[in-house]
């Protein structure tokens, strides 16, 4: 499902216009991204939680050359689904 199809489905369900729905979806993504950048996890009710994890620096090996190097520490985004959603999708 693309973003356009998602907007159309939401608009159809809520009765909002597609433009308004698009504005709300864009704002939602911005709020989620900002929250993640701020280091906050975003909990979506009955769906799951988007959170960030700190990935430590580690040794990595290039399989072609066998060269070993150090990867930098970084934050990664992870998603942990809600148990209810898990049961639904299971």
């Amino acid at each position, binding site marked *: *499902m*693309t*973003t356009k199809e*998602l907007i159309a*489905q*939401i608009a159809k*369900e*809520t009765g*909002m216009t597609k433009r308004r*729905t698009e*504005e*709300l*979806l*864009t*704002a*939602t*993504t*911005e*709020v*989620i*991204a*900002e*929250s*993640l*950048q*701020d*280091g*906050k*996890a*975003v*909990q*979506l*009710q*009955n*769906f*799951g*939680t*988007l*959170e*960030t*994890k*700190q990935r430590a620096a580690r040794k990595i090996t290039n399989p072609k050359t066998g060269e070993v190097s150090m990867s930098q520490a*970084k*934050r*990664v*985004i*992870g*998603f942990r*689904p809600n148990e209810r*959603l*898990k049961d*639904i*999708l*299971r």
Partner: protein
Amino acid sequence: MEENIQQKQTWVALRHALAKQVHCTEKEAAVFLESLVHQLTLALQDNQAIRINSLGTFRLQAVAPRKSVHVGTGEAITIAGYNKLTFVPESSVKESMNNTATPKLTPETDPLRKLGEQADEIIGILAEMGQTPSQTKQPDDKTPETPQEEVIEQPLETETQKIVEQLSETEPQEIVEQQPDRPIAEKVMPPKTSKKQEKNHTGLIILLTACFFILLCIGAYFFMQHKLVAWMDSLREKVDGTELVATEKLAEDEIIVIEKSDEVDSTESTIEGDSSDEIEEIVQPQYQSFITTEEMHADSRLAWMAYRYWGKKDLWVYIYDANRDRISNPNLIKVGTPIRIPRLTKEQQDLNNPDTQRFIEQIQSEFK
């Protein structure tokens, strides 16, 4: 442990932030979020991957069933397969996570943002109470601005004071810089006035030269007047001389005729005898030749003729005497009468000569 420490953007907070972002009611935001989750769930149930722009892709990943061993009994069991929900963030979001160059301020570190969030909460409460956000927007917009204005006004005042001070410092410099410009302007001005003065000077020079030439011409006229008159007289004399040459021939012919007549008269007088004795005593002048013959004009006078030829008016009597045959009365001469001018001897021209004096008295006595 990290999960416990990590703060969570709760559902209410997310709804509140969304309402603030889009300027809508929290109710509308809640409806949207519930619909979003519902549509995502439905799509995932249909085993569809859902791609959301600038966020990422939710995708179900099937985990195949696998064999395992029960730890307690040691029996071989099969773990059933299931669908694992995964999320792949977009690269822009990934990069933003590790972009430490511009760390964003948290509400704790950014007081203005905290105030803004508080204002948004007030807006949401008022919206729930039934007021339109547009009505409450104006005071709420002001509330976060007031601390900003207070914070910004001070540096502005200080900046303005600095600018005023700089201007006050720079003004005297400008005045000092402008002062030397004034003399330059004054120096530039004189050429304009000098051009006018030059024009006036040229006009005066032209007038003076004109006056000088006029005076010079007048002086030259007066200086040369006598010479010019003399030159004109000489020219007239030359012209008269040429006429005389022409007239003398005629006069000589006439004299010949007169002499012949005189001879006849003399013969007649000799025949008459003694009656002409008294006339001989008076001494009648004898005219050998004539200078010229002039025609009598309205303004001609015998005295002036005598003055012109001999310089003496009293000698007019000789002219009259030479023209007795044509002039009956010297005071009444017809215009156009030819007047012969006799050639007088020196004795005749001398007024002190008694013969001349006697002759003049005789003629004058006749017409007194």
